[in-house]
């Protein structure tokens, strides 16, 4: 009887899990496996191309310094964008979670989510209009300021960072908001009653308790930014050559899929390595 019940329970769990895992298998695991296979080929195995198994795509990464330099550049970009997003997003999440109540909170939330709802290309090109010389930003500043300024951020690293922060800011706001909202207001009152000023409360109570959410948001930003190519290409122009754009070139321009695949898997390995090194720190922060 009880074994029967346990079987039914197992069947139910299986029934609930299988759609998601089936989807993941079809949509991610299979294409990814195919790409992994490609990365060990000499040429794309389509048409009458002549191809054989090789590891030269992986060797290519180590033969010139260019790839490693670009990867490091991308990681630095990831760190910069993550840092800016955290510095901008966490205070915003704090105010949304702890200060503002009711309808105005909903309205402000809508503004936070808005980037998710707009097409990413549209988003990036609107930034291009804003940031270019004689663009919206320059005209706006000159309308306010008593002196003339030249603002042409287009095709520069700051432009890339601004575009990426805009795209990924909602992640850090949403994850931090959830963590902050779970903090009992009485804890803050208790800390105040013991004489703690705002900075002490932030440092010793709020930050440690919301760190899991903050870190989750940071990881969600860091990983895609390291591999990003669209924002660097459109907003960065000539300085916008990053590891992600090189990979994109292999697939779109050069049609060297095996090299692109190999570079992608090296990126994946490096990101996993970074997360693995960081995970003891993350774990300790959560307890």
């Amino acid at each position, binding site marked *: 009887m009880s074994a029967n019940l346990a079987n039914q329970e197992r069947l139910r769990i299986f029934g609930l899990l299988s759609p998601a895992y089936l989807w993941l298998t079809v949509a991610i695991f299979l294409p990814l496996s195919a790409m992994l296979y490609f990365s060990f080929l000499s040429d794309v195995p389509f048409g009458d191309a002549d191809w054989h198994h090789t590891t030269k795509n992986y060797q290519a990464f180590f033969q010139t310094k260019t790839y490693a330099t670009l990867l490091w550049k991308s990681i630095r970009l990831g760190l910069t964008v993550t840092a800016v997003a955290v510095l901008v997003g966490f205070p915003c999440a704090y105010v949304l979670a702890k200060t503002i109540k009711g309808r105005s909170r909903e309205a402000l939330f809508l503004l936070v989510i808005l980037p998710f709802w707009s097409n990413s290309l549209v988003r990036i090109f609107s930034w291009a209009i804003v940031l270019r010389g004689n663009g919206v930003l320059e005209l706006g500043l000159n309308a306010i300021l008593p002196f003339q300024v030249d603002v042409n951020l287009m095709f520069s690293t700051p432009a890339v960072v601004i575009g990426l922060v805009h795209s990924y800011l909602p992640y850090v706001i949403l994850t931090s908001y959830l963590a902050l909202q779970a903090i*009992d207001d*009485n*804890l803050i*009152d*208790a800390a105040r009653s*013991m*004489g*703690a000023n705002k900075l002490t409360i932030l440092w*010793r*109570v709020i930050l440690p308790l919301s760190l899991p959410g903050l870190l989750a948001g940071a990881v969600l930003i860091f990983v895609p930014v390291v591999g990003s190519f669209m924002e660097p290409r459109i907003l960065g122009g000539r300085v916008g050559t990053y590891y992600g754009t090189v990979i994109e070139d292999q697939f779109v321009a050069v049609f060297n899929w095996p090299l692109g695949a190999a570079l992608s898997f090296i990126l994946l390995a490096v990101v996993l390595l970074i997360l693995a090194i960081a995970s003891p720190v993350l774990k300790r922060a959560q307890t």
Partner: protein
Amino acid sequence: MAEVSVNNVTKTFGSLKALDDVTMDFPDGGFFALLGPSGSGKTTLLRAIAGFIFADSGTIRIGDQPVENVPVEKRDIGMMFQNYALFPNMTVSDNVGFGLRVRKVGAAEERRRIGEALDLVQLGQHGDRKPHQLSGGQRQRVALARAIVTNPRVLLLDEPLSALDKALRVDMQFELKRIQREIGITTIFVTHDQEEALTLSDKIGILRDGKMIQAGPPRDVYSNPADLFTATFLGEANILDALAGEGADIKIPHGFPTGGTLAVRPENISISQTEPTANGLSKCQAVLERRVFAGAMATCILQSNGNRIKVISRDQDIPSDVAEGDRLWLTWPVEKTLSVPSGRH
């Protein structure tokens, strides 16, 4: 340690008068209860004393210092919250030491005082635990240790015992009282449990709709309620207004206010089967409706002239052959009659 005095404090939230011209003194070293139903303003008053909210008008002093414009973190108070509000990311020791670290007392001094405070609440061995590893009663002790470790001028407790079960609560009441006596700190606590207020405090303040209805020693307030609300909120009271009937002789106490209401507490009424003859007793007849046995005590519900009367007495004091439906005599000493001014209620 310091006395606290609240004078003519008013606080409105929107159109709601949370505190309406509240005045109460809390002498140095005493144990005080703020009692009232929910929404009466008792927690608002406590938070105004703590400094979480600022009164619209009126004055609050702690010791000699007017504190109306002093924020909570500068008021040097200790506070315990209903859900204890222990920092889940810190050990018991770090929780208790939080206020000391803020005050930068130095590591050695910090350790010594944390140890002392934990010993005082009998948790000396639990310093390294995290709050989630403790029982409800233990968490409550940690919260108490944390609130007193900085030697604050006043200890404020917001329904400190309401999350505990009955048996533990009674234990903790004595414990709280013991510790308060030991360190002699002025303590103000908010409760909606009238028994708790009567048991623990030297003085209670009864609040209702933001007004301080009555403040005084528990015994005074209990035996001389300022109005009908207090009489029925603090313990139970039988209202005697419409009592009459055959043989009834209800004596009105000396100095009874005109237009007042007569009441008597259930435990002050005695039951007898024959008409009592002694002088100085009020008496009336009533029909026994229900007798509820509860160990040492018994509760009787009686009807007299359409009034419901409740009597609580020792079971052995009620004649054993009394049956439901019997016509009995109720008596009570005149001086136990509550004369309740009815104008304010």
